[in-house]
């Protein structure tokens, strides 16, 4: 009977542990992942061609594709037909804000915006604000950095921090001193760094 009780206890502890895993991450990527893996398709909304940002996004996809991780890729279908809920990228106009130049919304399969930190997600939308780019005189390299950064979010990479804490109390690992990351926030000109490749390898071993 002692053996039976210890079995019950073991099962209870394991199940409790699994069920309670909800928040936090111990690297600069989220616990949540894309349900179908990180070989993704990115459809460009017609606003890309209208505003002239297609070459920027092509370069951003190439930045990640050149890392050489077989579990991560960004293809670019010219149609949405037959792809289900694929990722979409839009060029928009920010009516309310003056500092935000891009954002990524993660969705469940039913189409609800969900918290990407701990939840697995189905697909994502990336929004880039042309008027904020223009107001802050973004260069080609800075726009490509921004698009590379948002693509990183669509495969679960997070914003690195220096202290290891984010605004909503989640915990990350502080970036090593001297390391750069395309996942840093801000109007920056550099693209995928060694640090980013290594985080990608940890997330998709």
């Amino acid at each position, binding site marked *: 009977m002692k053996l039976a009780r210890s079995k019950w206890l073991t099962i209870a502890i394991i199940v409790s542990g699994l069920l309670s895993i909800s928040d936090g991450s111990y690297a600069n990527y989220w616990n949540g992942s894309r349900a179908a893996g990180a070989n993704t398709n990115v459809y460009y909304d017609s606003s890309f061609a209208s505003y002239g940002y297609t070459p920027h996004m092509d370069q951003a996809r190439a930045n990640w594709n050149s890392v050489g991780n077989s579990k991560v890729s960004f293809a670019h279908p010219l149609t949405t037909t037959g792809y289900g809920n694929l990722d979409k990228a*839009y060029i*928009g*106009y920010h009516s309310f*804000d*003056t500092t935000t130049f891009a954002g*990524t919304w993660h969705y469940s399969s039913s189409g609800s915006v969900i918290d990407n930190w701990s939840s697995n997600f189905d697909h994502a*939308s990336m*929004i880039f604000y042309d008027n904020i780019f223009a107001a802050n005189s973004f260069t080609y390299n800075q726009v490509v950095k921004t698009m590379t950064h948002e693509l990183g979010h669509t495969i679960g990479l997070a914003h690195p921090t220096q202290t290891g804490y*984010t*605004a909503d109390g989640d915990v990350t690992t502080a970036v090593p001193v001297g390391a750069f990351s395309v996942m840093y926030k801000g109007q920056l000109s550099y693209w995928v760094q060694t640090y980013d490749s290594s985080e990608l390898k940890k997330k998709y071993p």
Partner: protein
Amino acid sequence: MPANKKRIFSIAVAVLFVTFAFIRYSADHQEASGQVREVNVETDSIVFHNLKELEDFSQLIIVATPTKKFNDRSQKSTTFPDGTLQDFASFNELKIAKVIKAPSDFDQTKTWIEVAEPVAIVKEGNSSAKLKKQGYTEMKKDSQYIIYLSKNAMGQYSVNGITGRYNLDGTDTDDTDAKIDEGHKSQLREEVEAKYPELIKSKMK
């Protein structure tokens, strides 16, 4: 093991399983219950590395206090033609206590102003979600802040993100959490405290 103890143990294990299953179910199906989910969305934005950069970017700097609770404030969002969320904000009516910096066309006799904040309740079909950009939390009714604002595309003043407002009276712990590393918030807060010691009613934690 006596039969009674065995029964109690089995019941305890069963209760444990049911409790965790319920917690998990509740989290997964919150939307169906009609509750407002809080979702932190990832955005990339202008980063202010020091107070001077923030002050230079800001057109209007004031000390003010919100007069309404969050749920009583106007909430707005815009979408792309296919229905994808483009942008969102809530509008906070503030009672002005002091104007620190203002453009020449700003009426300095004004005693109140409505400003946009990057947090809003957004409709999703039959339910709603409270979306927060990068951990931004709304300024609280009756709490006092120093606020850094810029004019948005609609001609309204908008808070310059999570580093665009600092609680002065220690009543908004969402703002004064020392762990927050978002966009150099902690460092900027120290600079604000050093520059405006007369405004600090309660030392920030």
